[in-house]
């Protein structure tokens, strides 16, 4: 399930010999995801801020909507295929696509192929495109070779591994490395780490009580760290965790990695 690193990157992105960095003037297309677009635009803005700080030029293809994951996970493959095709159309011309969500990234680079298993033409397009799709923290660390992005935040944070970022994309150290470079920020690991927050898309409403119970176990682990901030790569996990924290009257804030890295 995990991609091998480093991935093959189109020639224009070849690293120079000196610092292992890329030509930062390249254009990057944002796929902000429907959730960030509609519910958490500040995550999108923070991502733009960080990428521009690193010298990237940003495109936002306005025809973008969703990757189709809600339909795919809910067992509506036809609907998911239609939305996935739309995604392919919108981003076909983009050289690098950055996504502020581990689970949407995993949808595109792993599950699109399952959706189009029996459609060789679409499958070929998927293979071409998925090579150019990057989860935000992976893009920063692997493609941009970044560690310190000039962020500054005086606080104590813990990191929540989103399930798909962790298990389907194999992201564990990338996000933590970026967080350790944030000046003033103390990172504390929660125990156990890597357990699901209980969101799971429609699962969170079809089995609301169970989903809530899973989230409460998660926030117990968060609270035990004594952190004031819980950082994640996934807006959906944050919505769940923040929602339960808020219901419990706890003051811990949920922040996307981009928001932390945008702070100065």
């Amino acid at each position, binding site marked *: 399930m995990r991609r091998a690193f480093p991935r093959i990157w189109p020639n224009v992105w070849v690293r120079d010999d000196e610092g292992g960095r890329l030509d930062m003037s390249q254009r990057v297309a944002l796929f902000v995801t429907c959730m960030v*677009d509609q519910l958490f635009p500040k995550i999108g803005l923070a991502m733009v801020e960080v990428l521009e700080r690193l010298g990237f030029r940003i495109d936002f293809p306005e025809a973008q909507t969703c990757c189709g994951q809600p339909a795919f*996970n809910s*067992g509506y493959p036809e609907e998911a295929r239609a939305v996935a095709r*739309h995604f392919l159309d919108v981003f076909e011309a983009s050289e690098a696509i950055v996504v502020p969500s581990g689970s949407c990234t995993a949808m595109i680079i792993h599950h699109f192929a399952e959706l189009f298993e029996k459609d060789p033409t679409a499958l070929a397009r998927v293979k071409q495109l998925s090579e150019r799709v990057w989860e935000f923290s992976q893009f920063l660390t692997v493609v941009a070779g970044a560690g310190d992005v000039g962020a500054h935040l005086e606080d104590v944070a813990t990191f929540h591994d989103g399930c798909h970022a962790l298990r389907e994309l194999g992201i564990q150290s990338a996000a933590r490395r970026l967080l350790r470079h944030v000046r003033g920020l103390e990172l504390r690991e929660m125990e156990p780490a890597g357990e699901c927050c209980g969101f799971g898309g429609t699962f969170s409403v079809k089995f609301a009580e169970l989903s809530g119970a899973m989230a409460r176990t998660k926030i117990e682990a968060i609270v035990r760290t004594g952190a004031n901030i819980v950082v994640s790569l996934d807006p959906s996990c944050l919505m769940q965790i923040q929602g339960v924290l808020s219901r419990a009257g706890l003051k811990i804030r949920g922040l996307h990695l981009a928001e932390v890295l945008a702070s100065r």
Partner: protein
Amino acid sequence: MAGAFERKIHETLADTRLQQAVYTATGRLKDSRLAVIAPHVLPDYQELRAHAHLLKRHTVDHLDHYLEKFQRNVESRGGQVVFCNDGAEVTDFVLALAKKRGARLIVKSKSMTTEEVDLNEHLEHHGLESVETDLGEYILQLAHERPYHIVAPALHKTRYDVAEILTRRLNAPHETKIEKQTAIARAVLRQKFLAADIGISGANFLVADSGAVVLVENEGNARLATTLPKIHIVVAGIEKVIPRAQDLAVFLKLLARSATGQLLSVYTSFLSGPRRAGEIDGPDEFYVLLLDNGRTKLLPDSAKRQSLYCIRCGACLNACPVYRKIGGHSFPWVYSGPIGAILTPQFMGVSREPSLPFASSLCGACAEVCPVKIDIPRVLVELRADVHQSEARQKRNRLEKLAFRLFRWLMQHPRAYEWAGRLAASLANSADGGWMRRVPVLLNVGPVRAWLSQRDLPPPPSRSFRQLWRQR
């Protein structure tokens, strides 16, 4: 959605003692597994998993070939293979044999396959005594319950529960020391073993090239049940076959580690046919009942077929955040946890419990720990689609289908999508500058209500990202 499944989930979540017990027990099993697959202990763990997956895939893809080979080789060693469509055929075979041999007492070692077909109940109904001999299974048989967990069947029972069961069912003295409870069970079961006419076991593996049955256990009850009685009957699913004895070097390294965190279980028995000339002990008769019971229904779909690779280690249960909350008895059939969520709908039909494949956050922890790399989340997603198809035939759950059709249309039409998003946001923010709580109509939309039953929802932003982007 308030069927038996949902009710049991609710009850289990409300039982704080059970919550603690299941979470702690599965947590320990999880940690034990991690300790013995660590890179410095088993550096080639991932390679072994990949190889085990290939072996299982190959065997299941050519299952007829390996079953025939297995049958030939069992017969060449003096055993007999009987193919059974369902539990009734298994029961009939055992009853007929018992009658012919005048057998009354059967000792059984732990087998999920016989749990599938309620073999004990059927045999006892016909006047035979059939005793479970694994300690946990014996306790559950006395309590008339089914296993809570594939490898730790009595995981939900405390020593006080056990004391009560032993006193009530065996007239044993009330004893809450676990060592003493074990000794009580050992003494009773030892007499059963010495007197038994027939031993029935399951099988962890059927080795095609050898015509052998492999049993893995810790207590010694499977060895006793397959050594002392004159007749040994194996009841195994047709998917248990592997090509060669040498492949056990791969599977045995994975099975005990994944199941209990042991390097090997205490006893592994490799049994090929009845006692041979010159051998001192062992059964005179050896039968292998190969059970279908719905397994062939899993074969046509090449993605779902992988459900049959399962070696019943239970690691996915321990890793699963859902199982750890709802326990084993919330599940509608003998198999619980992630593997149960994919086996039950396929064996019993999706309508047995249509919401079962949806009871997962698709977190992937099960696939991560599966020693034969079954992509359980993928099978779950496919089963969800199967449920929708069956619902469509019955014209059920139409509102959700309509919603996803609308979703599909909106997501292909960016302007409509934008407009709908803003409309929803303004509705939510409209009443008195407040938020959804003040808009009863929105609050009563099923998913919103369900969400808010557990957690808060952030107020929608006044502008979407794309609006903000345009303003830059």
